[in-house]
């Protein structure tokens, strides 16, 4: 945490800029090095997931149960499922992924804008589950990076909430650059 002195000094001495390069330098230093800002942004991201539910199988019913009023994971800010990957930052892969479908899943993942996270929902998405056969991807981490795996066939809603909270912790402590790196 930066002290309030450091903040006022930063604002007091460097807020007046005359060129674009100076402005960029100011914001870059302010956003990337200021722990307070990092905390605020992390908090905001963690409590406003926009999920893209990639639902392929029976786990979808359990996803709906977790999203419904009884378990209601909108409590954690993941209120609105978006049905375009361009508007989402949390990809939930819910159900069995076949080799035929794997290129589609990777395209959807690549269409999402950074920063983005992935939850593998259920044992089929995580490891192929009992579909140990010619057609099923043996874990989606073979094709896209995954942040949190949820075991279970299907997972209990409590497990889904636990995974969401684990991901929140991860996102809150995330320290990636807040501005895009310009080369």
């Amino acid at each position, binding site marked *: 945490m930066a002290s309030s002195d450091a903040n006022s000094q930063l604002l007091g001495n460097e807020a007046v800029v005359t060129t674009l390069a100076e402005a960029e330098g100011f914001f870059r230093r302010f956003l990337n090095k200021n722990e307070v800002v990092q905390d605020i942004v992390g908090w905001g991201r963690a409590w406003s997931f926009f999920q893209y539910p990639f639902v392929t199988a029976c786990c979808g019913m359990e996803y709906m149960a977790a999203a419904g009023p009884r378990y209601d994971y909108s409590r954690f800010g993941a209120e609105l499922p978006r049905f375009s990957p361009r508007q989402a930052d949390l990809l939930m892969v819910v159900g069995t992924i076949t*080799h*035929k479908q*794997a*290129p589609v899943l*990777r395209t959807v993942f690549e269409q999402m804008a950074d920063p983005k996270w992935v939850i593998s929902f259920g044992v089929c998405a995580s490891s192929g589950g009992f579909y140990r*056969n*010619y*057609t099923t*991807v*043996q*874990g989606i*981490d*073979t*094709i*896209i*990076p995954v942040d949190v795996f949820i075991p279970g066939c299907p997972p209990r809603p409590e497990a889904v909430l636990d995974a969401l909270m684990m991901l929140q912790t991860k996102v809150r402590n995330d320290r990636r650059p807040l501005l895009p790196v310009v080369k």
Partner: protein
Amino acid sequence: MSKLVLSRIVDRFGAAVLSHHSDCGDETALVSPAQLVEICRFAKEDPALSCEMLMDLTGVDYLGLKPAAGRFEVVYHLYSLSKGHRIRLKVELPEAEPKVASVVPLWKSALWMEREAFDLYGIKFDGHPDLRRILLYPEFEGYPLRKDYPMEKRQPLIGPRAGREHL
């Protein structure tokens, strides 16, 4: 199922019906592949039989259970909507070239079911207008429901990512 249907088929195509039974009320006839379409046409068009519907068409692999000359079977389940009776027809096909005439001219439902049997068992259907894979992707090699398809063989289109090759 119906004994009437079976007896009419046996009476009409005596030599082409290789064997038949009525176990547990399931009337079944094993017929000669060469006569299959004729028998199906009779089952569909004979007024007493009128099996308007092909309920199911599937392949079976009897590797190790039957000699190579009859390794594959294709099973047809016919149903009469007007009479309410059913009949099961089977043909045996050799391992070297499993091929049988298509019944698409009789029942349109055979279009996808024959493609499925081709996709998973590699059984060819002569006269099918569009015989290509239906469930698997075109790049897939081999026929996965054959008993000699390697259980651990995977044919991924993409991946695995670096560090995940063991999966």
